[in-house]
């Protein structure tokens, strides 16, 4: 195996990541800005005609990172704690309940997430990255996709024909992309992760299959692809279930020689792939490549691979 050259690719990716992190903006401070305070000043009694409510966007990073605790024991320490995590901490309380601002930010995040779920992956992106689209057996749109996971795990007859025509059989590594529950996750991450995977395979001298995109895709479709194309390692990049206010998280599911009847126990997964708080997509690509090589060396995946390592 071309281990040294692969390491070189990975090192280059890591250097790029470090450079990107160095220019990232520092997080904002906890105190409310003077402008925000001014806007909140109450009009004088009898001045109803002057009532103007003109709010700053509460979803901007500076507003999000503001603490809701009026008199913390350790104000600087609190800021440091809040910077460690994207979770909603340091939010304070009204009695045992949430403060109004925190509650409304939460509800706003939920609102945009619900709206984002309805979208499809941009066909231009797929064309740009050379992915031809196929479908699973879901024919009734998103609603059917949600309530019929069985159909999302099977390739349609047209898909089977198209894939058989256009893809080479028995590659070392087959890469597929699925929309899953978030088109946005595919759109945000694919340009970064796909080239790393492709360059890595080439460097390592691995024979790569023709990549393609699957609409209305569930993880279980890997078995159908395995039966059809007989890849040694299959990597499925798929949009994850959207989190609150964030729909850009992707997973890479991987399996060694997937086939009908396989379950999650035969698969490995790299989850939470996204920029700014998750597993960086470049890093995830490098990690997936290492994992693929491990699968090829041990000729297995999932729980069995883990047990061999233990």
């Amino acid at each position: 195996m071309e281990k040294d050259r692969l390491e070189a690719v990975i090192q280059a990716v890591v250097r790029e990541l470090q450079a990107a992190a160095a220019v990232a903006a520092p997080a904002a401070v906890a105190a409310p800005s003077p402008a925000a305070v001014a806007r909140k000043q109450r009009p004088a009694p009898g001045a109803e005609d002057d009532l103007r409510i003109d709010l700053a966007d509460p979803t901007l990073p500076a507003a999000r990172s503001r603490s809701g605790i009026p008199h913390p024991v350790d104000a600087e320490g609190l800021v440091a704690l809040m910077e460690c995590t994207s979770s909603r901490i340091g939010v304070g309380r009204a009695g045992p309940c949430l403060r109004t601002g925190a509650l409304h930010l939460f509800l706003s995040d939920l609102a945009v997430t619900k709206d984002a779920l309805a979208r499809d992956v941009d066909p231009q992106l797929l064309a740009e990255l050379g992915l031809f689209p196929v479908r699973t057996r879901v024919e009734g749109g998103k609603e059917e996709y949600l309530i019929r996971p069985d159909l999302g795990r099977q390739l349609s007859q047209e898909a089977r024909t198209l894939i058989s025509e256009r893809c080479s059989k028995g590659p070392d590594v087959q890469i597929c992309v699925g929309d899953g529950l978030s088109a946005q996750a595919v759109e945000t991450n694919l340009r970064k992760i796909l080239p790393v995977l492709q360059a890595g395979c080439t460097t390592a001298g691995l024979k790569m299959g023709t990549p393609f995109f699957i609409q209305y895709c569930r993880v279980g479709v890997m078995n159908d692809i395995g039966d059809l194309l007989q890849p040694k390692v299959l990597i499925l990049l798929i949009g994850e279930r959207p989190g609150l206010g964030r729909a850009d998280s992707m997973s890479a599911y991987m399996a060694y020689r997937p086939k009908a009847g396989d379950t999650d126990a035969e698969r490995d997964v790299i989850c939470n792939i996204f920029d700014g708080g998750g597993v960086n997509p470049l890093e995830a690509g490098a990690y997936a490549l290492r994992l693929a090589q491990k699968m090829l060396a041990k000729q297995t995946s999932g729980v069995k691979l883990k047990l061999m390592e233990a």
Partner: protein
Amino acid sequence: MLLRTKLFGKTYDFPDLRVLMGKANGEKSGDRLAGLAADNAAERAAARLVLAEVPLWALRDNPAVPYEQDEVTRVIHDALNETVYAEIKAWTVSELREWLLDDRHDGSAIARCANGLTAEMIAAVTKIMSNMDLAYAASKIRVQRHSANTIGLDRRLSGRLQPNHPTDSPEGIRAEIYEGLAYGCGDAVIGINPSDDSYASVARLLDMSYGVVKTWEIPAQTCVLAHVTTQMRCLQSGSPVGLVFQSICGSQKGNDSFGISVGMLDEAYQLARKHCYPAGPHYMYFETGQGSALSANAHNGWDQLTLEARNYGLARRYSPFIVNTVVGFIGPEYLYDTEQIHRAGLEDHFMGKLTGISMGCDVCYTNHARTDQDSSENLAVILAAAGCNFFMGVPMADDSMLSYQSTSFHDIATLRHMLHLRPAPEFEVWLESLGLMRDGRLTDLAGDPSFFLSR
């Protein structure tokens, strides 16, 4: 087998118990997906009429998966108390329902009766109960367990602190633990769902979380919810483990898909008793949820409620400190909307209690289900009234790793204040000693994670 009724002059005929059990269920998208749901509301009502007259022995004789084929069935049937069973086997499902609700029968009487029940009997009676029946019957049953503290006492509500982080950052997770502790949450367990299941990463998180417990002398147990095989390796390598966790399924085939077996769980249980750091004697933690067997195509043609009841029968073998039904996590293909999630949460909590396990509920939903946070708050209030042992404490209910919404530190504090419930006694003493709680209520100092930066 003849299973038939007339309803408004129309005859409804059910070929076997499997079909009857499916059609008697409350509406669930998962049962519809599996082709087991009633065709319409009248057929569901007819199925319930018939199921109510089924004797308990028939349910023992017809498990969801035959005894010879399935080790989960064997675990449940082999553990049955034959004396109790002989007393009740002629009861109908209807009689069992009324016996459970009867005020002459308290928690200890119910616990004895439960020794003669199989999962299929528990599922059957659940199907013919209303939501309030489920809440009321569950409220009669208390299941107490002890590890580093005591869970399940009357008028107590524990919190399962879930400080997840998308990349398992120990600093980020520690910050979330501080936030949760500052709200009086963490007595059920401080449990981290890891993003990376590798031994090294899991061992690091076990060390970090145990460090917090030692530094602050917290009477609580910690856990990293990796695959059980990873935790077993940690136990053998000397990592500090409070509870040993695993997700389980209601059939052998389902457990295969999780990469586990009864033998493996037995081994984990032995290791836990040998190596876990709390006083015990209860060391196990399981998670379940309706639909998991179907999603692994391991339901053997049976409905998701019955498979869930079998989870609890399997869990009972290990006297777990806690069992958590993650009720809305699986998504709308199994539980479509608020009504279905609420029904399932109440069913699971009741079935767990009746089985005799320490039951909590992850009252939750994913963003693609037809529900919202207000609905979660509603279910949490009902379950708290029903005596649920614990709820999840997630920062503002928003789990940044698992991408779903659960209940918050605030929710647990609010439920305690509103319903006069207190934390686990040892944990309450600890909170009072730090000045974070007085007479069961949060003090002005509470809610500030920077409080925990002083040690």
